[in-house]
């Protein structure tokens, strides 16, 4: 492999001045570099969102604490939610999709490389706009203020009467701009998967990661569009005298809720489906067996995608819908549990009869399975709408969606980091630090989010900057804050691992995990053109066929 095929700047430092390198990265249209840009960008925002979470937790450590003012607290939870969903979870998953999809289908790049770069820089601009609001938010007084209307920005709090400065505008524009970026990436992923598969890579031979990203990209198109429409309507309300959401002038606050959640619920699946994708690649490799029930896994994913489009109003059980609407959304929401359950069973079926290797990616995957199971079950509880009349807007719901997003999505992402970092950098992540990271994070996670369920059952609402003593909430909140700091410590271990292993990690070689998909057939990191000759595949596990010519998968298809 020639040196200019290596994509990592540090290895080339001696050869090129940093300005050239910077120029190369800023102007790159290579899917692998853009993937890494997405991931690094998301990690920066993960740190910001994490600091905001810690500020929230310090404030809530005991009743009547005054670490921050209510105004600052409200900004913190708004920015924490917005950051984590739009500028951590989405870009990091797009990053992995960008990096992995072309490699896994034997393509040399995404279908539209320049659209790819454009989409990334739009998303980057969105994140910058959001955080610029700390400086430019309120405009006139020069004091600066970030958005403070919650990450759903329910009307009419966003109306000029209640939110007179510019902080809500920064929120709106940030989501609008990054939303266009997401749509661009989704189109790109769809086109790449449908048009650029290598010879022999039929739809039913694609790795599940590719299948699931195809479904995810389709959902992004459907979910982001109403959100963008709502943002434009909100801007019309705020600047052109519109009254879509202005209840004082006959507009409808409920309309915004529908717009937001018809985006917001599919969005949950936009985030979790790529994580299902990681699981469906990692669990088989570390169980040394093919995925159990491949066609069922694809069907379940498509089924989730469809059903999840009709469940959005379960976020609105408390708004006073009639009993028929509440019953309908109870049924659809419970129904989504069926294909999701099938997936969990199939992952267990994959492990069943295997020879499980407990490397760090597999540890995080098992953590994912355990936590996602609980998250699904608390989801069923809240699907029972009367139960939700108690649980909604309380700490129970906070616990539930952090179980999905941290216990599920973040654990799956950590698994993906430990699994594909060697491919991206050519170096293994340290297993020793990895295990410290896993156990610390697991302990911190459960201290924090298990306890939050109980707080919700005891009647503590979310988004309150303080609470009265004597409600029985003090001890639980104290434990939660301890857990949050243990998680923060684990993240520092992870960050240290990323940096140290980059320079000192063991050499990965092409295929450190003895895996079966095409990305492991090329060097680590792969050359800019990915494949010297375009591969031809005859089964779902081309590298298995290569390694086991006496018993190839292709014989059974």
């Amino acid at each position, binding site marked *: 492999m020639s040196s200019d095929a290596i994509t990592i700047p540090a290895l080339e430092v001696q050869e090129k001045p940093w300005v050239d390198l910077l120029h190369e990265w800023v102007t790159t249209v290579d899917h692998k570099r853009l993937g890494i840009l997405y991931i690094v960008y998301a990690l920066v925002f993960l740190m910001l969102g994490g600091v905001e979470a810690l500020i929230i937790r310090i404030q809530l450590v005991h009743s009547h604490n005054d670490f921050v003012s*209510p105004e600052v607290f409200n900004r913190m939870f708004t920015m924490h939610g917005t950051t984590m969903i739009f500028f951590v979870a989405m870009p990091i998953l797009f990053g992995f999709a960008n990096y992995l999809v072309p490699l896994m289908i034997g393509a040399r790049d995404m279908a539209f490389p320049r659209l790819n770069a454009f989409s990334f820089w739009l998303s980057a601009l969105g994140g910058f706009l959001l955080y610029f609001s700390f400086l430019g938010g309120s405009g006139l007084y020069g004091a600066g203020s970030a958005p403070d209307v919650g990450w759903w920005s329910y009307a009419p709090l966003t109306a000029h009467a209640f939110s007179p400065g510019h902080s809500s505008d920064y929120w709106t524009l940030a989501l609008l701009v990054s939303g266009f970026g997401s749509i661009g990436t989704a189109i790109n992923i769809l086109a790449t998967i449908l048009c650029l598969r290598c010879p022999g890579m039929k739809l039913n031979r694609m790795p599940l990661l590719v299948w699931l990203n195809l479904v995810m990209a389709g959902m992004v198109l459907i979910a982001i569009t109403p959100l963008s429409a709502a943002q434009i309507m909100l801007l019309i309300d705020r600047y052109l005298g519109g009254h879509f959401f202005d209840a004082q002038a006959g507009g409808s606050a409920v309309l915004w809720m529908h717009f937001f959640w018809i985006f917001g619920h599919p969005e949950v699946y936009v985030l979790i489906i790529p994580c299902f994708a990681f699981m469906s690649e990692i669990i088989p490799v570390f169980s040394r067996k093919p995925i159990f029930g491949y066609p069922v896994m694809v069907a379940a994913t498509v089924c989730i995608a469809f059903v999840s489009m009709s469940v959005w109003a379960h976020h609105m059980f408390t708004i006073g819908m009639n009993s028929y609407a509440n019953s309908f959304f109870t049924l659809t929401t419970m129904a989504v549990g069926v294909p999701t359950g099938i997936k969990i069973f199939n992952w267990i079926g994959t492990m069943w009869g295997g*020879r*499980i290797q407990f490397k760090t990616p597999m540890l995080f995957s098992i953590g994912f399975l*355990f936590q996602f199971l609980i998250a699904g079950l608390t989801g*069923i*509880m809240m699907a029972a709408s009367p139960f939700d*009349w108690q649980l909604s807007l309380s700490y129970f719901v906070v616990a539930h969606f952090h179980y999905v997003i941290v216990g599920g999505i973040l654990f799956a992402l950590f698994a993906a980091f430990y699994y594909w970092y060697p491919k991206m950098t050519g170096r293994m992540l340290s297993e020793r630090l990895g295990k410290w990271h896993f156990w610390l994070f697991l302990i911190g996670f459960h201290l924090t989010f298990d306890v939050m369920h109980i707080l919700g059952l005891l*009647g503590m609402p979310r988004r309150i900057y303080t609470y009265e003593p004597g409600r029985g909430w003090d001890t639980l909140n104290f434990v939660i804050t301890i857990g949050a700091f243990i998680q923060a410590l684990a993240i520092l271990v992870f960050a240290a691992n990323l940096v140290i292993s980059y320079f000192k990690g063991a050499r990965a070689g092409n295929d450190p995990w003895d895996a079966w998909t095409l990305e492991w057939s090329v060097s680590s990191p792969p050359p800019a053109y990915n494949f010297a000759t375009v591969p031809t595949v005859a089964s779902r596990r081309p590298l298995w066929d290569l390694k086991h010519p006496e018993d190839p998968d292709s014989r059974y298809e």
Partner: protein
Amino acid sequence: MSMLKMKSSTLRFLAQTMLLLFWSAMAGWASEPKGSSPHGTNIFAPASTPAKSIADLSVFVLVITGIIFVVVFALLVYSVVKFRGRAMDAGREPVQVYGSTQIELAWTIIPILIVVVLFLATARVIHAIQDAPEPAGAVDVAVIGHQYWWEFRYPELGIATANELHIPVSDPSHPTPTFLQLLSADTDHSFWVPELAGKTDLIPNHPNRMWVDPQRTGVFLGQCAQYCGVQHAKMLIRVSVDGPEDFAAWVRTQQKPALEDPGVAAGRRVFESNACMNCHTVAGTPADGRFGPDLTHLMSRATIAAGAAQNTRQNLRLWVQNPSAIKPGSLMPAMKLSDADLDAVVSYMETLR
């Protein structure tokens, strides 16, 4: 088959044990209030029919999901332990299994049946709570959410009050439920008193309804559950469930106009010559503002500032002088009165019984 049955009964036992542990833990936190201290906010200590039917449904759902958890968790642990890679296997691959239609069908159909059962149980409770007709003898209250306080109006009784809702206890043999019409004057709010009922939002331009029929007397706590602005946290609710005589007595007091006490004429003058009267009503006087709470019977309430502080002279004085000291972000302006005026107006307020 009998093996399977035995296993499932063991699992059920495990589930029940877990639930028992959970309940005892909850009971520990929910320890019964002592003396006259208010009831807590535990959703598993219901004191009214809607909260009770929700709690019953919740236990049913918890048992089902608990059983699912135990079964799947056991499968997960079993496969992790049983199928862990061993050193002697090094280099050898296990049998490559691709799937099984029968097994897939089994774990598709069983969950579908569970969903059907859960849905039917839930739909019954939805209907029972939401579509309950309003009986004769029910008390009607309009609940109006304002940024950081609650307005309560009893249209049939001609009463307006704030933050502390009084309702009659409801004897199951002779029910006197209270029906709440939920309105908002500004942003979204949510009325949540966990031991009486689930929460329902107050949304501008979108009237909602809920009902409670508390079967125990005492004070029940709750608070705004929908983020409504800077001081969302200190928008607390106290619901006083009174015995029939107490409730009737309370109604009689509230229906009277404000007490006239010539001893505090100076304070009244301060009240009526400052912005106070633009926002607050004192029935029987020119003060008829509705932006802030009705003060006609201020001293009949145990707390001020929507439950943020006890109703004492010291707190009243602080509240009038500098509301931010109690509730930063409150829409009540600091009145910047002289010490003499401040004392006079607080003395006047103290006569509003």
